[in-house]
């Protein structure tokens, strides 16, 4: 009898894609609402987007149980911060907190691929992109999840960001207007659902600007 290996995994991939785009005075965060496992759909109506602070929203794809646990953790830490400092956490501060939280579990990671979007203290849009163990970077736009390989090249082409290594430091945010950015996100998800089996059902778009947070939905392919 050949040597038997343990074949239970603590992780599962629930699929899905998320995107965030930063503008001069707004930030668009979007994710599809399909939750799946293997070849089956668990639900067509699951929100992957979570509001962490007044001006800070996170979208995560990957293993939703870990995502849920991560969101709870961050919400608790945010509450503590509010008690101690008598104010909401800014987006860059939350970004650092998320990075530290993820690295804390470096050797049993949260199987969660995150994009954080919001407005910084000056009201300009900012997007932070993460890997599963907390490496992060401030960028002008990003996508994560099963459809990210399909979405990212298109965003690179339409929103090409100058390299952050160039001097003088150039603005990463896109000069597009808010409506155009939302339009771009809708096109990108419609295209991704054509070719990625894990992306589809419905698209949830969250827009943060000076007026507050606005939520919008769009139907995607259901097959």
């Amino acid at each position: 009898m050949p040597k038997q290996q343990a074949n239970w995994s603590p992780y599962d991939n629930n699929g899905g894609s998320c995107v965030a785009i930063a503008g001069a005075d707004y930030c668009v965060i979007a994710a599809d609402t399909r939750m799946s496992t293997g070849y089956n759909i668990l639900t067509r109506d699951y929100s992957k987007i979570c509001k962490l602070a007044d001006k800070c929203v996170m979208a995560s794809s990957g293993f939703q149980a870990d995502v849920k646990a991560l969101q709870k953790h961050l919400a608790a830490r945010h509450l503590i911060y509010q008690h101690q400092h008598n104010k909401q956490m800014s987006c860059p501060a939350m970004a650092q907190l998320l990075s530290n939280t993820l690295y804390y579990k470096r050797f049993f990671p949260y199987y969660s691929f995150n994009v954080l979007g919001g407005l910084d203290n000056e009201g300009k849009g900012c997007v932070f992109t993460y890997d599963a163990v907390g490496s992060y970077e401030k960028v002008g736009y990003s996508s994560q999840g099963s459809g990210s390989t399909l979405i990212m090249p298109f965003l690179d082409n339409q929103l090409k960001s100058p390299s952050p290594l160039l001097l003088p430091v150039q603005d990463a945010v896109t000069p597009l207007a808010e409506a155009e950015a939302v339009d771009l996100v809708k096109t990108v998800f419609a295209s991704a659902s054509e070719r990625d089996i894990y992306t589809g059902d419905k698209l949830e778009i969250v827009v943060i600007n000076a007026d507050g947070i606005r939520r919008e939905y769009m139907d995607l392919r259901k097959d």
Partner: protein
Amino acid sequence: MAVEQANLCTPQDAAVVRTLRVFRDPHVDRELEPATVLIIITKHVMSSPSLNFQTQISGLILSLSFSGQRNMSNSVIEVPPKGGFSFDLCKRNEMLAKKGVNPPSFRKTGTTIVGLVFQDGVILGADTRATEGPIVCDKNCEKIHYMAPNIYCCGAGTAADTEAVTDMVSSQLQLHRYHTGRESRVVTALTLLKRHLFNYQGHVSAALVLGGVDVTGPHLHTIYPHGSTDTLPFATMGSGSLAAMAVFESKYKEGLTRNEGIELVTEAICSGIFNDLGSGSNVDVCVITKGGKEYLRNHLQPNPRTYTNSKGYSFPKKTEVLLTKIIPLKEKVEIIEGGDAMEE
């Protein structure tokens, strides 16, 4: 001729060599063409009951050396010192797999295919999505394959396998029709397919739903990759088979009319399309009756593109040129003027 030096590893090889000796016409003193030898060997091996014909064929060919033949290209195969099949590449594949380099994935049709028998004949249905892992590689492929004017076959599994096996059996059926002068029967196609698939012990990954109408009546069969078959009044295969079968089990009854049958098949395929991630896009239907067949390609298209930007997108024409540096090529070839043209 070096046949005599063949390594007689097994009794089967001895039989092949005997055949070759017979073929060498004693009246014409001419050596056997290498191609002839290969054909004889292949025929012998294909008809052999044993299954490791790979061992036989390689063992025999490697031991043969075709030397000094006119107008034959030098196709001498490297002879391993021990003779027999060379498993070096298997070891290499194992080593690569351990290092994390996996073999390329094949295009599978994560699929929903169905068939049912109705009043006047058989109805086949299929979705149209072909996947390569999690990516859709073809949004509108054809999964209902032609076998004979009165027989069609839906295929699930590896796309190349289903295409190849249905094409091959379709040709064999046509030859058989010429030979017998009669319309093909579904059981003929069934036997040809199951013999082929069993011979390959499940490595030809084709799961088929075969349906047709012949002189003996309407028939519907399922064929599994290992070669087993079932004869059924309604059948589903593919990754979406459970979703489709759920619909069939609740709503199927005997003696359906044509329209009822088409509706039920469409519903079953739609169930696969919407609930199985490996199936999607459109519904193909094929109705076969004694009178003839009706291939309804894209009978239903329930998944249009959800959003198209009215203004469209422009793509910058080329990548940025950062630096241009031209290095002229050095002439390495000497041009000989007035040399002899192509020596004989």
